[in-house]
């Protein structure tokens, strides 16, 4: 049987800072541990990946998220970038949500590897463990 690196798919749906952070944390550590990680950013999660959201720190937060911002810890963008630098982690924006909002890739922080549809994402993550946040 063909051997391949274990694969993880992380689907980020929510704009809640805690969910984005938890998904990014699992993805980045998985990447550093030798897994191939593909992250699909869709629906409201995309809003938090916009450059203007970072400029104004416009995130939806609960108790822990507020404290994360107050303590200025590295956020999900930094975790994802570390995962990219230290292993194989790819990030894709959802074509549907981008189209609906008329957002362009250049509106987003510079971590994306492209804007794709679900069919492509399913193709690249076949057999992967899936985490949805």
């Amino acid at each position: 049987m063909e051997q391949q690196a274990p694969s993880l798919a992380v689907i980020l749906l929510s704009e809640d800072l805690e969910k984005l952070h938890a998904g990014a944390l699992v993805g980045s550590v998985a990447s550093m541990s030798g897994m191939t990680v593909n992250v699909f950013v869709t629906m409201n999660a995309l809003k938090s990946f916009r450059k203007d959201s970072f400029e104004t720190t416009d995130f939806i937060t609960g108790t822990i998220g507020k404290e994360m911002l107050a303590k200025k810890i590295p956020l999900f963008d930094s975790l994802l970038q570390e995962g990219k630098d230290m292993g194989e982690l790819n990030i894709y924006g959802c074509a549907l949500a981008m189209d609906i909002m008329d957002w362009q890739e250049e509106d987003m922080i510079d971590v994306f590897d492209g804007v794709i549809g679900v069919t492509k994402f399913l193709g690249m993550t076949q057999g992967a463990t899936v985490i949805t946040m």
Partner: protein
Amino acid sequence: MSEVQVTKSIDARGAYCPGPLMELVKGIKTAQVGDIVEVLSTDKGSAVDIPEWVNKMGHEIAYLENDGDEFKIAVKKAK
């Protein structure tokens, strides 16, 4: 313990999980096989997570010491 010759020491005290692990991964990546990379941490999670990562990646723990809230973990790059 202290006879181990540390090649590089990383001070990640004060960093939240998984900061110390990330710093260690960076240190190991740029190290030579046989080098010993030590990380200082105040994060309890890292004391558990770092040995887990080291075993998974096939490296070796040279030592793991703790003094109060502070951990000192040294890793030998095996491959």
